[in-house]
């Protein structure tokens, strides 16, 4: 993934078939190519064999606790909004072996972690997802203790971003300032243009690697009209967001630990942890040590964890957050408010996954809006 390099390359027009060439070229360069395809009643991010795997003609319908695949007539390849899980599971796998240890005659020996597998080529990253990568890069980028695994996977990745030309009902990246236009963090970015007369991509490089690959793919220089069409479509998506976040109130949540809304949302919250699992920035993990029967071999594993579990806040003698209200408050307050203090930005990128994949449809934007409403002068005095 490129750093702060800005896109200076001229845009080109790629025909739909050029995507075959793109995926083939990335494979030939040794990348593991991952991108969207239809499986298990959803557009998921998974390994791609070729452009035929892309979800041609598929879109989705998302709302609180609800997702359905929808056929779309235009044959668009990137006509869906976001997949159930983001790129986190590739860049920050759910289960990672940290090391293994063997008993030896004189004590024990530690075996280093396995070398990194082949680098990733990510096809179809959305603006909110690139924002999430930037957030996690900071989270795992502590100056004294950076996470070498995450940093390397991200640095080695080749990122093909595809800007959204439509927004979903649970999308709110526009209000978070993270999309839908892609500004940085890509090797190639594309906008898909489909109409009766053509099916093309307006593509731009964002790094030297991207420039080189685009050159290999050929393609005519994009006309001003093509670039305008692309910009207009992305701007249209920005205006059709299904949700919006009240960021001012969101930032203030840390000042409202006793707000009555916490108990109300706790009555609905299942503490199942789905929101944290699908969140592209949630990074909490637990560490498990496992042994074999003889006790001669041990392994240390890092696994995704959630602030919604009882064990998460367990310290000597018991769990700190026994109440559901305390756990929901912890999650949303950290995500939207104290994240600013800790990492210099919001922890939310507005992808809407926590809304869609909450089994009971709890809506992070609605919770903030309700708190804002209750905090209005007329409602004050019931802190």
């Amino acid at each position, binding site marked *: 993934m490129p750093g702060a390099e800005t896109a200076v390359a001229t845009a080109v027009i790629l025909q739909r078939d050029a995507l075959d060439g793109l995926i083939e070229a990335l494979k030939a360069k040794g990348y593991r190519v991952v991108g969207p395809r239809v499986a298990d009643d959803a557009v998921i991010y998974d390994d791609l064999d070729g452009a035929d795997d892309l979800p041609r003609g598929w879109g989705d319908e998302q709302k609180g*606790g609800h997702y359905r695949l929808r056929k779309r007539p235009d044959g668009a390849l990137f006509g869906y909004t976001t997949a159930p899980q983001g790129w986190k599971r590739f860049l920050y796998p759910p289960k990672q072996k940290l090391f293994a240890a063997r008993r030896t005659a004189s004590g024990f020996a530690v075996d280093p972690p396995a070398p990194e597998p082949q680098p990733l080529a990510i096809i179809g990253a959305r603006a909110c997802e690139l924002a999430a990568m930037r957030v996690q890069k900071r989270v795992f980028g502590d100056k004294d203790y950076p996470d070498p695994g995450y940093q390397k996977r991200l640095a080695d990745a080749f990122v093909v971003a595809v800007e959204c030309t439509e927004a979903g009902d649970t999308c709110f990246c526009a209000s978070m300032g993270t999309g839908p236009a892609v500004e940085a963090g890509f090797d190639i970015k594309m906008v898909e243009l489909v109409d009766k007369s053509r099916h093309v991509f307006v593509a731009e490089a964002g790094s030297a690697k991207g420039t080189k690959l685009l050159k290999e793919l050929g393609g005519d220089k994009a006309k001003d009209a093509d670039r305008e069409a692309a910009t207009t479509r992305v701007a249209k998506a920005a205006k059709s967001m299904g949700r919006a976040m009240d960021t001012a109130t969101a930032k203030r949540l840390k000042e409202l630990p006793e707000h009555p809304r916490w108990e109300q949302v706790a*009555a609905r919250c299942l*503490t199942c942890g789905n929101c944290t699992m699908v969140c592209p920035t949630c990074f909490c993990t637990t560490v*498990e040590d496992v042994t074999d029967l003889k006790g001669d071999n041990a392994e240390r594993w890092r696994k995704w964890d959630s602030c919604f*579990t009882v064990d998460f806040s367990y310290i000597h003698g018991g769990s700190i957050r026994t109440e559901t209200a305390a756990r929901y408050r912890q999650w949303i307050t950290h995500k939207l408010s104290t994240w600013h203090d800790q990492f210099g930005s919001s922890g939310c990128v507005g992808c809407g996954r926590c809304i869609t*994949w909450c*089994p*009971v449809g709890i809506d992070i934007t609605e919770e903030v809006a309700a708190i804002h409403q209750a905090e209005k002068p007329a409602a004050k005095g019931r802190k």
Partner: protein
Amino acid sequence: MAERKKPKLAVWKFSSCDGCQLTLLDCEDELLAITEEVRISYFLEATRKVEKGPYDVSLVEGSITTPHDIKAIREVRKMSRTLVTIGACATAGGIQALRNFRNVKEFIRCVYAHPEYIDTLTTSTAVSDHVSVDFELRGCPINKHQLLEVLNATLNGRKPNIPRHSECIECKQNGIVCRMVATGQVCMGPVTQAGCGTLCPGKDRGCYGCFGPMETPNTPSFAKWMKELGTSDLDVQRKFRSFNANAEAFRKESESHG
């Protein structure tokens, strides 16, 4: 390293289908390693050879359904240093705990030609309702990897890594697309403890709740959502009344429906 004395393992059965004991035999690849580390002293499902107690580790399958069971489980407890209950029957009363919601005498009259031969309790209950239990391993049946983990941890003197959180976390870790959100099927995952290895959701089936209630199940909220998905009140009750019908959270919720 000094040769350690092999701990004695006993496997007991109460009211159950034997499926959880079979999980131990199903360990196949690991079975030889197990026999190298423990002495199988009592395991009638596997061998007629029986050694007297006391035992270091007892695995107990099955629920308590007869007066004889109550006496027997107390004996097992006395003879066992560590007692681990395995499976939904032993940890919650099993599917046979459906009797707890009805009149058992009527069942006996309907089913048996000679009801006078039947000596049974009116309830099917968990082992922990009768004796103290050191660890409860959930599932119908239990998961082989979790069983090995409990044995490994017990033999090595550490706490087993058996999470009590929802099945959803396991689904997400395994990359399963939520059946309830993506297809509208009712799935018990959000109120059910993880551990099965996403068996049903991985095969396009909502979770049946075989591993019993998760650590903090919000069953009223979940029941309300099930109804919004079009589940009848009676079916909501049925969802909570299966293999873990007598687990407290599921029993209480089931009693508010139907």
